[in-house]
């Protein structure tokens, strides 16, 4: 009896359930194709851009292009000063924003108490991440170019790097906090239970676990910085530079005027001669390669830390 009853119930509900199932599968399929379409659109746009740039720029790429200074003659022009400028600026940005950003993130997540003050700081940092980059350019112009001129040397590599570091700092801080938050609290509790201080717990347990995530955030931040043009134009880096910062004297080096790849590309794109537009395409390829090389280094570093942790 019971069995029969149960059977009847099941069949009854199955019939209505089956109707449901087909609709649910349909919705499932529709959603699957919708997400596929989203992927395809994104990939197609990317491929079109890459192919367009490659067709224009690849034939122009040569050793001469990488080793020459900018010139009024498109066929003799190269981007050596811009490439070197980009390398200098990115190294400095990493050196400035990593310790400050990670330090701020650790303080906010591990040390500060949950007061209205720390909440206000948190909201502000999240907002800063959304401020248009040109605003940072204006800030850099006043603070680093004008006020700190004796230290930075005016429109110098250091000024550019400091401005870009400010721009990406919120991204690093937010990424650091997210990664620290992902570390289970039981680890901290266990550490404290054994009598470790907060500093010891953070240094020995929490930070190593969070490091891969922090590095990912830093990569994203640096990738944003390398392509930025607007803030650098604002601080006055849109400049014809055909010499390199001196390597033998790093202080003088970071204080020397500079140009970077996106600015060189911008300069070439706005020229009347079509040959310069080809140079711009080749410059974009070089910029992409530098970006990918930088990302690859960070990925390798991160994987190394991940294995250790």
């Amino acid at each position, binding site marked *: 009896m019971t069995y029969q009853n149960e059977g009847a119930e099941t069949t009854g509900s199955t019939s209505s359930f089956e109707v449901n199932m087909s609709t649910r599968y349909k919705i499932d399929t529709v959603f699957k194709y919708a997400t596929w379409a989203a992927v395809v659109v994104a990939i197609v746009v990317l491929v079109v851009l890459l192919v367009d740039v490659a067709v224009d720029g690849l034939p122009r790429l040569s050793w001469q292009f*990488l080793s020459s200074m900018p010139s009024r003659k498109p066929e003799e022009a190269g981007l050596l000063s811009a*490439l070197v400028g980009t390398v200098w600026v990115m190294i400095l940005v990493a050196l400035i924003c990593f310790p400050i950003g990670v330090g701020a993130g650790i303080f906010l997540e591990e040390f500060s108490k949950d007061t209205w003050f720390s909440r206000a700081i948190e909201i502000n940092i999240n907002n800063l991440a959304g401020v248009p980059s040109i605003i940072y350019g204006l800030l850099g112009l006043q603070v680093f170019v004008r006020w700190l001129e004796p230290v930075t040397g005016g429109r110098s590599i250091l000024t550019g790097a400091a401005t870009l570091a400010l721009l990406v700092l919120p991204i690093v801080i937010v990424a650091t906090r997210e990664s620290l938050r992902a570390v289970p609290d039981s680890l901290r509790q266990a550490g404290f239970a054994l009598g470790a201080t907060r500093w010891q717990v953070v240094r020995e347990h929490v930070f190593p676990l969070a490091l891969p995530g922090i590095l990912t955030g830093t990569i994203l931040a640096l990738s944003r910085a390398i392509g930025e043009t607007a803030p650098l134009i604002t601080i006055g880096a849109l400049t014809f530079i055909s010499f390199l910062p001196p390597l033998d004297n790093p202080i003088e080096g970071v204080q020397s005027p500079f140009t970077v790849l996106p600015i060189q590309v911008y300069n070439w794109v706005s020229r009347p001669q079509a040959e310069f537009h080809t140079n711009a395409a080749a410059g974009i390829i070089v910029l992409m390669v530098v970006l990918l090389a930088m990302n690859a280094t960070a990925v390798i570093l991160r994987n190394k830390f991940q294995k250790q942790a």
Partner: protein
Amino acid sequence: MKRQFLLLLSGVLALTLAACAGGETDTTTTPEDGTTDTATDAGAEDGDVAYVQVDGSSTVFPISEAMAEEFMAANPNVRVTVGVSGSGGGFKKFCAGETDISNASRPIKESEIELCQEAGIEFVEIPVAFDGISVVVNPENDWAECLTPAELGAMWEPAAEGQVSNWNQIKPEYPDQELRLYGPGTDSGTYDYFTEAVTGEEGESRGDYTASEDDNVVVQGVQADTGGLGFFGFAYYEENKDILKVVGIENKDGECIIPSEEAIADGTYNPLARPIFFYVSKQAMAEKPAVADFAAYQIDSANTNLISEVGYVPLPADLIAKAQTRLQDGVAGTMFEDHSTLGVKLSDKL
């Protein structure tokens, strides 16, 4: 989950890198060698390097760039940087003592002179070349051969906004073809000069035209639009001769003149030909001989070929001589009392 995702991400990145670096392994690695080499070379002759800082108008930039390139090849101990921040932006830096030479596609304004005076900066105003604003239409446009400044004014004046939108409103015999306008943005000196020349009021024009700071956008716009009309510097027309049609401009003698090097230099292409300048600080010249050298180099008659090479029209020999004396004597101040070059003959002023 997270770890898997990170591994996946790194895999994807590595693959992309491998794919992109495929034919290009050389380019990623080699620059490092190149940089160190040249950097140490430059460092070796580092002795006492003099910097000359030039900034200002984007119109004058190609000239300064070409001059700087050749000047540095001849004087390896001098480093010339040429910035682009517009005529106005350049004067702001110049009058704050941040730059030695300021490029401008228009004479210095009264407010800028005051700024310089406050900072105690005296300047010498030197015309370096001529530019001819070229008015272009689509090659399929077979009706507009010659336009008067008044007709251009009718198209561009503020009152034309939303009203003038067809070629037959300019002249009844023109066909019924939609008129669409392209031009540089309102920040540019070219825009200021053009509006003053055709509407009589500097910086006053209709707002409903396609404005772009990049003149190549104007080129593309007019090229794709049968009823399009645009304007920009002579260099952009020279480079796009085969895809655009230039319109003659009726000068004050009633002749219809097509912009050309000769017509721009001898003043017959008026009112759309204009001199462009650089301003050099007297203090900087006194402190740094390299600044005075570079200023003199830019108006050396041996270097006029550089000016034509980048698409501008060099000054005639007699004006060059006058400009050179002006620089040597260090004549301070502007020669344009009403701060406009419209309708002014340079030979009368120098």
